[in-house]
């Protein structure tokens, strides 16, 4: 068995674990570190529910190995709010009814967070393009776009 020592910082907390090379980053985050905010939807790289930010870059964590994240700083949905204080984007999701079942929400929030960091004033088209990798089967996307627009400057 190919075992590797991996050290990552997730939402400011450092973790060190032994992982098998075959372990996907999403399983490491959810199963080994018990950070279950990031979801597994399709496990085929299509749905985006597992989206996290690795060293400032938005990725789908089901298409990256845990061992590849060694030394990285990772942000997950748990790191957005400051205690009970939601980010403006999270509040906007709540106020605009941008979720129903909530399954896609962690990925949507990470993708929209990555977009707004890079482009604080996205157009409607830019918002749609930025969320293309995140599938929602409840909302029809409209309220998600409304929520992102509400916090766009």
């Amino acid at each position, binding site marked *: *068995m*190919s075992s*590797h020592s991996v050290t990552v910082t997730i939402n400011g907390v450092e973790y060190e674990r032994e992982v*098998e*090379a*075959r*372990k*996907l980053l999403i*399983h490491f985050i959810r199963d080994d570190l018990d950070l279950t905010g990031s979801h597994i939807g399709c*496990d*085929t*790289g299509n749905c*985006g529910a597992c*989206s996290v930010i690795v060293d400032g*870059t*938005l*990725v*789908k964590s*089901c*298409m*990256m*190995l845990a*061992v*590849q994240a060694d030394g990285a700083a990772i942000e997950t949905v748990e790191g957005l709010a400051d205690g009970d204080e939601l980010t403006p984007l999270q509040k906007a999701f709540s106020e605009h009814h941008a979720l129903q079942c909530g399954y896609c929400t962690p990925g949507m929030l990470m*993708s929209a967070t*990555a*977009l707004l960091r890079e482009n604080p004033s996205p157009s409607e088209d830019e918002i749609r*393009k*930025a969320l*293309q*990798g*995140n599938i929602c089967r409840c909302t029809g996307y409209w309220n998600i776009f409304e929520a992102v627009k509400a916090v766009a400057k």
Partner: protein
Amino acid sequence: MLLREVEYAKPASVADALSLLAANDGARALAGGQTLINVMKARAASPDVLVDLNGLAELKGVELAADGTLTIGAMTTYTELMQSAEAKARPILAEVVGTIADVQVRNRGTVGGNVCANDPTNHLPPLLTAIGARFHIASAAGEREVPAEDFFLGVYMTAVGTGELLTKITIPAGKGDGFAAVTLGADGTCICNAAASLNGSLRVALGCVDAVPVLLQPESIEEDAVRAAVKNAGIDPPSDVHASAEYRLHLAEVLAVRAARQAQGRA
């Protein structure tokens, strides 16, 4: 999904990567992983060793030479290509990679991974064939350079052999380029695509209709000539749930004309 057991190696240099790849028939280069990790989940590929190319700076980046030749490192991501000032010398490149999948995939997926996967529905094999790209393949024995016509060999097969690695792609100067596709959803998988390049003579490359890009050299840029070139190519496209062979052939003709028209407008 739990992958089959696999060893993992992180080489410190291209030379290191080449010796790892040569040492084991079951070793495979891991580029962005946006194809390979998924085919490993499906057990369609089961390498014994993954040689992770991420972190090899020598395989990254875009350079523009004084004569207009672009050199793209194999591990350059789609996002990096879109943001490259040098790549603007050939605007079609950023335009096309900007329609591959989604932000997350573009952030990790690489130009080299796209062409080495050589999925017949990928965007870059026909585009790089039309614009006359050359592929630089390294091994312990040295480096060889292969034109696009000889690089794509079959479904999921390229000229990159065991113990070899695609290091960079060079693209000659030019600007009269076009690309057209019919996709599943806005930026989804291609049902059929066509790339065209009018830099001197016209080159058109069709994707999704055969195992490898089909290169055509129509007699002129006129619509009739482009249609005739597609008709006379003897293509027998596959039928699948998205398109019959007949419809795909129809799309190939229409998309070739659209790509050629765009190329003409920019030449």
